Each structure stands twice: as structure tokens, then as C-alpha cells.
């Protein structure tokens, strides 16, 4: 009995050891590459410490009682030991304290994540004097469209951002819900058809970071990945002008093709038609294609937030 429990402990500790000995390079969430992910990382580590403590206490008592009272001839059997007010108060108060120790940083981080991270690099010229970059993201079965509303370009399945600059992603869904997740840069948010969402991310230094959809949306979901390419200010400016000068424009017909459910290769466009910027969802787009008003069949007052344009502020 005792031997098997020792074995079990060893098995349980192995992954923990692996974690501590620094194979965390592979583990995206534990390898934050930007201020948002780092803030979440600190919270995760803090909770991991507290929870390891709890688990350790439980395991120690567990092993103690089994070893001490699990033998046929063990002494100290006391059938009248049916409660202990003092002990019970202790193990009521300790979890309350632990909850407080976890809740305070949780709430603080929650509010902090609504604010843009601090820029750590000079803004590229392509931002036209703004200190942040805004990118509209639309999930379509099963691809990611990225629109640069100020730079007027569009990319598919990859996005280039300046390193050290806060980037606000505005998230939309064309059809099914998806979730926009770049684990090394920060936690995810959903894309939804009736509620644009905002997510601040920032990369410390130039590099490529894997992103993927984390909310199941059908057949091509597993292939619904994208790359976030963080570049220096200079490279970012060069990339923008290269796309503007060398790439084809996104035509209306091509855009309608992109909205079909399928998977496509990464691509980029030097401009986009006005309809793209309206962020229509599938129902609205169908209405427009049928020559109706996109607002026609949405009932005012039924949407969440202010007329469906509310959501997270």
C-alpha cells in the first residue's frame, strides 16, 4: 500500500519537475512574449504556487492517515472522533484567505487588461502619428481576415504588427463564433456576429507568434491558424508600403469568395472595397445581396448593448 502511494507521488511530481527544470520554452503560455501575456503569466504562477501549497497539504494529511491508520493492527482507533469545532474553523478560514489572496490580483489584472499596454518602442511612420495600431479582425469559416482601417490594407491568415507598440484588435465574426488566441502574446477573446470585442496585445520584440482559433467552428476549424509577425518600426513601414505598392486590390468579387466556407492560403491586398469596412455578418450580407437593407430584419431593442454595436468598452 505504502509503496504504491510513493510510486504515485513520483508520477505526480514528474511533470512538475519537468516544468521547473525549464522546458518551458515549448510551453507557449509559460513563455510570454508581451506585456499582456506576462501579466497573465504572473497571475498563473501565483495561483500555481498557492494551489501547489493546498495540494501538498492535502497529500501530506492523506498519506499520513493512510500510513498511520491503514494497517490491520494500527493503534489509536477512536470511533467517537466525530468532529472538532476548532479544526473545522481553521479549514474554513484558510481557504477563505487563499481565495482573497487570489481574488485581489485577479480583479486588478481584469481591470488592467482593459487599458493599452505601455509602448516600448517608437511608433512607425505608417501609424500617422498615432501611438497605437488598430486592426479589425473577422473570423470566417475557416480563415482570419485582418483589416488595417488606417493603413487601408487587408491581409488573410497573417498579420504584421510593430514590435513594442500596443495593438488593439477589434474582433468580429462573419458566421460561426471563433476565438482569437495568440498564447505567447496574451489570452483570447471570442469573435461574435452581433458584438464587436476589443483585445489589446503587444509584442516585446520582433518575431513570429502562432495564433489559432480556440473555439470550434466546424470542419476546417483545426486549420484555422494565423501568424502574428512582429516587426521593427522600420520593417513595418517597409512592409506596409510594399503591400500598398506591389499587391493587388481586394475586389468585391474576391471578397465574396473569401466569405465562402473554406480554407485559404495567407494573402494580402493593397486596398479593399467600402463594404468590407461595414463588418457585416452573414445575415446582413445576405440581406444586402438580396437588395434589402441590412438593418431590415434586425429588431431594435433585441440586441445586446446599444443596437448591437455595444459590447466591451
Amino acid at each position, binding site marked *: 500500500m505504502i509503496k504504491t502511494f510513493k510510486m504515485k507521488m513520483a508520477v*505526480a511530481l514528474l511533470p512538475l519537475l519537468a516544468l521547473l527544470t525549464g522546458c518551458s520554452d515549448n510551453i507557449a503560455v509559460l513563455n510570454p512574449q508581451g506585456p499582456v501575456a506576462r501579466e497573465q503569466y504572473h497571475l498563473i504562477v501565483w495561483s500555481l504556487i498557492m*494551489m501547489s501549497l493546498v495540494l501538498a497539504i492535502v497529500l501530506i494529511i492523506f498519506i499520513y492517515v493512510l500510513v498511520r491508520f491503514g494497517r490491520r493492527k494500527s493503534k489509536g482507533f477512536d470511533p467517537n472522533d*466525530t*468532529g472538532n469545532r476548532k479544526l473545522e474553523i481553521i479549514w474554513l478560514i484558510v481557504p477563505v484567505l487563499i481565495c482573497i489572496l487570489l*481574488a485581489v490580483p485577479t480583479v486588478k489584472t481584469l481591470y488592467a487588461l482593459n487599458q493599452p499596454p505601455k509602448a516600448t518602442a517608437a511608433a512607425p511612420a505608417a501609424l500617422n502619428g498615432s501611438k497605437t495600431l488598430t486592426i479589425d479582425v473577422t473570423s470566417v469559416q475557416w480563415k482570419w481576415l485582418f483589416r488595417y482601417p488606417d493603413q487601408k490594407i487587408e491581409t488573410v491568415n497573417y498579420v504584421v504588427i510593430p514590435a513594442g507598440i500596443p495593438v488593439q484588435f477589434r474582433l468580429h465574426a462573419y458566421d460561426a463564433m471563433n476565438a482569437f488566441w495568440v498564447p505567447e502574446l496574451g489570452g483570447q477573446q*471570442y469573435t461574435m456576429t452581433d458584438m464587436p470585442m476589443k483585445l489589446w496585445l503587444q509584442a516585446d520584440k520582433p518575431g513570429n507568434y502562432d495564433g489559432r482559433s480556440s473555439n*470550434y467552428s466546424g*470542419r476546417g476549424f483545426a486549420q484555422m491558424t494565423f501568424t502574428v509577425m512582429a516587426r521593427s518600426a522600420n520593417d513595418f513601414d517597409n512592409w506596409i508600403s510594399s503591400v500598398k505598392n506591389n499587391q493587388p486590390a481586394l475586389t468585391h468579387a474576391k471578397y465574396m469568395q473569401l466569405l465562402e466556407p473554406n480554407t485559404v492560403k495567407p494573402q494580402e491586398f493593397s486596398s479593399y472595397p467600402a463594404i468590407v469596412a461595414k463588418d457585416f455578418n452573414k445575415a446582413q450580407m445576405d440581406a444586402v445581396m438580396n437588395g434589402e437593407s441590412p438593418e431590415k*430584419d434586425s429588431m431594435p431593442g433585441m440586441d445586446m448593448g446599444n443596437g448591437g454595436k455595444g459590447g466591451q468598452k
Partner: protein
Amino acid sequence: MMDSITNFLSHFFVTGDPMIYGADASIALVSVAVLAVLTYFKKWKWLWNEWLTTVDHKKIGIMYIIAALLMFFRGGVDALMMRTQLAMPGLSFLNAEHYNQVFTTHGTIMIIFAAMPFIFGLMNIAVPLQIGARDVAFPFLNAVSFWLFFAGAMLFNLSFVIGGSPDAGWSSYAPFAGIELNPGVGQNYYVLAVQISGIGSLATGINFLVTILKMRAPGMKLFKMPMFSWSILITSVIIIFAFPAFTVALALMTIDRLFGAHFFTIAAGGSPMLWANLFWFWGHPEVYIVLLPVFGIFSDVIATFAHKTLFGYAVMVWSMIAISFLSFITWLHHFFTMGNTAPVNAFFSISTMLIAIPTGVKIFNWLFTLNKGRIEFTTPMLWALAFIPNFTIGGVTGVMLAMAPADYQYHNSYFLVAHFHSTLIAGTVFGIFCGLHYWWPKMFGYLLDEKKGKWAFWVFMISFNICFMPMYFLGLMGMTRRMYTYPAGLGWGPINFIMTIGAFGMGIGFAIMAYNIVWSAIHGKKDTTGDPWDGRTLEWSIASPAPEYNFAHIPTVSTRDAFETMKEEKRAGRAKPPAPFKPIHMPNNSGIPVIMSAFMFVAGFGFVFWWFWMAIPGVIGVIACLIARSFVYDDFHHIPVDEIERTERAAGRLS
């Protein structure tokens, strides 16, 4: 003409996959075999009289458990198929469509058609015996509940070979689960099958609430009930409050899909997020519907095999009540990442963390029940003991998930999948296996073999850890749930391979348990005393298997461990001489529940295919059954004294 028939058939039956044809063949073979065996041994009448029309809570419990074990097997095969597909990067054992169906049916079957009915089975068997009752409050309704669950389960499983399975995940999020993005009958199967069995679940909740409140033996105050009965009382309340939300959500989605309404669509003012809210308003309490009963089982089993009264009884009860209350104000933590404002996420973060407090209290009370005990390592006790550390791991990762900003990194990743399997397997599955071994002698009159039981335990428990511990790390590496494949080069391959080994190990553990059941049915040790474990609660005071009327005399209770006290009194020579028997009032069998559920199945099947010519007669059949029942006045009989005497003597209870 021929063409249109072929076309219809090729859509009606799922085609094109050798595995499906294999399933078709095996289903046909098994059905024919069952029919042949029943006919050959002339068992039709026996089947009808003894089982299909029974209203006996013990037989209904056994039927629940048999069905649940079959569903557990089906869900387990789904799991092994998924693990095979994911064992290495870029495999094509299953294609995307097939994989999507398999994970959807795995989740739905495990929660709704395996875990819940298994628990309903155990509570049917144990609760009336524990509280000293002769049946549940509404025996007829109990049979209706079972047959509705069975009809729902069969309808859901039929989707595998006829029409195609649902593929929107067990949570079926709108708008993806809506008719526009998910045409076909698969999702119809989901809404209708789950709805039909859900009606049964709701009725079970009402039935057991009334049973426990009204039918306890004289002297058994609420705070003298065995802990399992307490857990079922609280679970019943949760069922009654949570299930209507799901019933409504499913009904709205059915109307959306079948009749073109717009509750959850993108167009016409529908709100996809409303589905998420309604679903999880049921879904989170549902977690506790399958968890609180096993807390009760563990409490009784740990007390029995530590040979002590449960430590901190009142605190155990109050912590369950606290959990049941909190379970209704945490649903939003399933979608922290759907754009709630910071104050909303903060509220649900904290409310979720609060659940850890009563749960932690319970863990320590179990540990201190073991403390100063005389621990006996039987098979049910091993499952109960393994629950403590393994469930604690699931619990602490639950607290980590409760922290909303950190959840942005865990959500929908394998970290989450690992967490809920840690709680649902180490909690619910360990618990139902524990209860199965514990109450088996009371159901059938013989014990499951201890040696094989322990083998099954160790293989299953160790494999469970091999399967799910690495999964936490896989989640932190960025792998999300519901991916049918992943490319090489991300470093996910080796971990996935280890997990697959663990999954097959769990399959072997389950197979050993199944073998044990078959072996023990032939060679199992007879339980002649009715009290094989030196039990503390009333179910052990009667013969095994329990007679139809349970208690020849309704016991009078004065303490918490009622049977333990009786045994002590007997040893001290203070037992009272038994009173003479009186005729016992028992409910009559009825064929209406099974017939009504068959109509329900027909109606459900018709609705799935938009065949109203079939659905409407089905609904009329259901209504006709309800009307027929309301004219049954003569629905009870009395068991005469000499028959009671005969039964008691045969069980060696009369000297």
C-alpha cells in the same frame, strides 16, 4: 423513381465509412441475437412482467445502471477513437467530419446518457433503502422517468447509423448549431433526444425530493439521514431549478431548427449568446448534479470502511447546501472570454472561487474521517480513497480557471479539458464505480470479486493519470480542444502519444471491470448476511438482494448511523422482539410508461426528419397514454402476511 429512392436511402442511412458498416452489421446482429434468445428461452413474458412494466425502484435502478454501462462503453469507444486519431500528428484515422461527430457524441453521451443515469440508478437502489421506505413517492412516475431516458438515449444513438450524428459539440453553441450553418438532421437528434431524456430527469428530481422529504422512517430527522440521501435531496433541488432552463433552451432551438424561428440565429434579432447563457445556466449546476451524489457515496463508503461516524456531519451537509447555492451563480465562468465587462467577470471569478471553500472543507472532513479510523482497503474504498488526491488536482486547477484573466489563456485549451476530466472522472466516474461495487451485493445478492475489482481499479486509476496529467501541459502549449489533427513540429506529438496510451489503459481497466461483472455473476461470493461490509446505514439491515417490499417492518430510527446503533443494541441484548407482520401496500406494475416512451421515441424520430406525419401520431400516442393512466384507479395491491413470512424465511431472517 428508383433514383429518388436510392437517393433517399443514401441520405437516410449513414454511408461511405467501413466503420459505420461494421456498426450497422453489429447492431443488426446483436438485435437479432437478443430477439432470438428471448424467443428461444420463452422469456418475453418474463421480460414484460418482471422488467418492462416494473415500478420497483430497485429494478428500475438496475435497468438504469445496465443502460448507463452500455452508454459508458459507447462513450468510451468514442474517446478511444479520438485518442487514436490524435496519437500522432497528421493522422487520418478519422476525417474532420467524423471526428467532430465523435467528440460531440462522446460529451453528450458521457454526461447525459452515462453519468446521470448511472447516478439515477444508484439513487434508485439506495435512497429508499437508506431512509427506510418501501418505494419512491411516485413509483409510476419513476418508471416514466427511466423509459423517457431510455427512449432519448436510443434516439441519440440511432443518429450514428441513420441520418448522421450531431457535430456541434456537446454544448452546441449557436449560431454554429443553427440550421443555417449546420443543416441536416444531426443537430435535430441532439435537441430532441436530450429533451426527451431531460423530461425524465426533471421528473426524477421531483420524485426524489418528495420521497426524501415525505417517506423517511419514523425518527429519521433530516439531520439523521445518511449522507448519500442528503446529497440526493440537494441534487433533486438543483435538478428542479436547473433543468427547466435547459428544457426551454432546447425547445427554443428546436423551434429555430424545425420551424424557422430566430431565437439563436444571426439574423432577425436572434441572440446566439442567449444560448450560451441558457445552456450554462443549466450546464454548471449539471456538473453538481453528477458530483454531489458521489460526494454522498464517498461519505458513506469512507465512514463504513474507516469504521467511524462521518467527521463533521453537519458541516458536510451545510457545505453541500452552500455548493448547491453557489452552483447557480457561476455559469458565466464558461464564457469569461465572450466580452463581458470587468465587473461582471470579477463577480463570476469570485463566486467560482468561493465554491472551493465548501469543497475544501469537505475534503478535510473526509481526511479526518479516515484519521483515527480502522481503514479497510476494499475495492469501493480504493475508489473512494483515490478520489481524494485526484479530485483535489481537478479542484485546484478549477480555482486557477476561475481567475478570469488567467482563463483567457486556458479557455478551450486542453488545460480546460484536463481540468474537467480530472473532476468528472476522479469525481463522478470513481464515485459511480465505488457505488457500484459497494451496493452490488444489495442489488444481486452476491459480491463482485475483490481481486479483479482491485486490478480494475489500479489499471484504470493509473491510466487515468497517464492520460490526463500531461494534458494540462498540452493546453499550456496552445493545443485547443476539438482539433481533429495537428501538424508536426509544434512539440505536441509525444505528449499526445502518452495520453493515448493512458486512454487505452483506461479502456483495459474498464474491460477488467466488465469481466469481473461476468465472472462474479457465475462465481461471485453469496452475501448471506445482507451486511457484507459491516455497514452503518439501513440498506444493510435487510436481506440481499432486497425483497420487493424492502422492509418487512419499517424501522424506527434514533441516530445517524441507524443500523450501526441497531447492531450495538443487539450486541448489548437490548433489541426488541419483532412485531407480527402486516400486509404491505405496494404499487402495481404498469405497461404505460414503456408504451408512452415508445410513442415519444416515434414522435422524436419524426421531428428529427421533419416527418410530421410520423411525429404527430407519436405525440397523440403520448397524450393517449396520459389519458389512459388518469383512468387507472386500481393501482395498488397488498402483499399478504404469509408471503412476507415465506420471503423472510427464505432469506434466513426468521428463526
